[in-house]
């Protein structure tokens, strides 16, 4: 199943055979994350369409309120930069029933489910001893992904600054830019993701290109999409679904 191939390499916060070696190099201080407010007429994808002309296509209204940041180290089709959605707790899920409405919000199915305890600093201060099994606070995490890969918490999380993720070179990365961590193993998927084939572009096909983060669809600790009962299908005459 492709879901297993497309799994991500974010590892659990609970202790799972925890490594006891903190990164040797001091982590670089991650840049401050800010939402990008679009400027009127700023269209990096189609600069040839002048804003305000009769034929200009309107930008999707939801984008203005959507927190996003430019993806670092990745470009989309044509070498254009693109933006990734940031975690915005409290937003409605993208399977909302108000799918056709102008006030449609989306982002981060995972946010409301597994990042309810974010920010980590509300409990953790300073160095977190990952050898100490304190999994009670993170019982909602199912460590399927680390179990399959043999990773530990400290493979992906910084013990002295659990707010951040840790790349293999010890560099700290914000959870909003988790794709940088995922890309270290899942290079093919990330390349497809940057090109727009894996994952989802949000709001519109035109204008600002904002795509969803890896962890917006995949639970990093249990990346496979779940099986469930589908929405009811059509009532069709005859077996096999003949003509309507």
């Amino acid at each position, binding site marked *: 199943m492709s879901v297993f191939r497309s799994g991500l390499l974010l590892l659990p916060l609970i202790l799972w055979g925890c490594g006891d070696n903190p990164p040797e190099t001091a982590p670089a201080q991650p840049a401050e994350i800010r939402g990008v407010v679009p400027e009127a007429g700023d269209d990096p994808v189609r600069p040839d369409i002048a804003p305000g002309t009769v034929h200009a296509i309107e930008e999707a209204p939801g984008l203005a309120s959507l927190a996003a940041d430019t993806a670092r180290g990745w470009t989309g089709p044509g070498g*254009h930069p693109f933006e990734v959605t940031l975690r915005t707790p409290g937003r409605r899920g993208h399977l909302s029933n108000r799918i056709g409405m102008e006030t449609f919000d989306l982002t981060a199915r995972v946010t409301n489910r597994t990042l309810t305890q974010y920010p980590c600093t509300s409990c953790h201060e300073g160095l977190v001893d990952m050898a100490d099994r304190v999994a009670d606070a993170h019982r909602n995490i199912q460590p399927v992904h680390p179990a399959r890969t043999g990773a530990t918490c400290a493979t992906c999380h910084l013990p002295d600054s659990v707010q951040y993720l840790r790349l293999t070179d010890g560099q700290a990365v914000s959870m909003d830019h988790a794709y940088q961590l995922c890309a270290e193993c899942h290079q093919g998927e990330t390349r497809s993701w940057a090109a727009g084939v*894996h994952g989802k572009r949000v709001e519109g096909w035109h204008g600002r290109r904002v795509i969803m983060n890896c962890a917006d669809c995949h639970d990093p600790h249990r990346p496979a999409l779940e099986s*469930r009962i589908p929405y009811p299908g059509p009532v069709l005459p005859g077996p096999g679904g003949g003509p309507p």
Partner: protein
Amino acid sequence: MKPGRELTFDDMLEYVGREATRPPEDEPPLPMGPYPEGGGDAPPTDGGCGSGSCGCRTPDPSLLDKKMDRRGALSMLFGAAAVGSQALSACSPTSLASAEEREAKLLEWEEYFKGNCRLMSEEDRERTIERLERLAKLKDGVDVRIDGTQAHPEVVYGYAFNISKCKGYRNCVEACIQENNLDRATSAQYIRIFEMDGGTSMDDLDHGDASYHHEVPAEGAFYIGTQCFQCANPPCVEVCPVGATWQEPDGITVVDYDWCIGCRYCMAACPYWARRFNWGEPEVPARELNPNQHYLGNRARKSGVVEKCTFCIQRSRKGKLPACAEACPTGARVFGNLLDPDSEIRWVLENKQVFRLKEDLHTEPRFWYFLD
């Protein structure tokens, strides 16, 4: 025709006959019949019979001397007759017809005589949209916004479907029903998701099951979705005897619901089962109605007309994704502008192995399938 006299059927015949011999004019058609101004919140007529403002009065006969086409003349004459009869009943003390009902009747008359969408002037199109919005308010009590956005000259829409991503959840179907105001009574659906056994040829939909209902994804199965493919060479358009369906410059094949006669030739001609017929008036609960509509898209359909997927024309022409692509939780759907070399859909066509259904028919669908 003398002013101040009641219109008779002979008057109409005389007028229509005179109009028919008149050489064609280049001028745009005149406004059709009396029309309430300012959104029509005030009833078209008020005051009692004989007060001069009562609807029983015939319209200003000088209108009849102006040049207009046959359709406009018919509309005005029959519209006047309709108003007259309605107003007569309104004047009688036993009448229950409210001002709203009279206004709705009048608007329906004017709607009945409007032309094909492609032949309308800009002004005509605005007026019919106004009428439809007002009618929705009067008859169903809903505030809808009907959009008339034209095709963008630099855009041709294309769609790609990733077979290896689709899990068969049918979130696209649900979103489509809500977005396009599909009939809830008959469970109309534009999108079909076929469950195929592993090892089946991917384009052999005859062996697929579109009405599966069990937990998905099923072991060993894969899923492939169909809808209208917006063919570049659409057979459905070829066979329409009245020109009620056509391909827009941006590649979307649309239906003029007010021009369709319901012969269903297009349904027989479509090799992809993409069109749906309204056997009755579509039923949509008012609280679930999507008020953001397009004249050629998800506005209210009537009984006896054909409808189809339009790539959510009311959304895509405003730069948004179709509802199915937006709702897909697996990212199996890629939508974009085929004329933009930097678009995602072009990346798929250039970097993935793609195929289309029934390519030997030369319908040239703008809907491609691919695998990871």
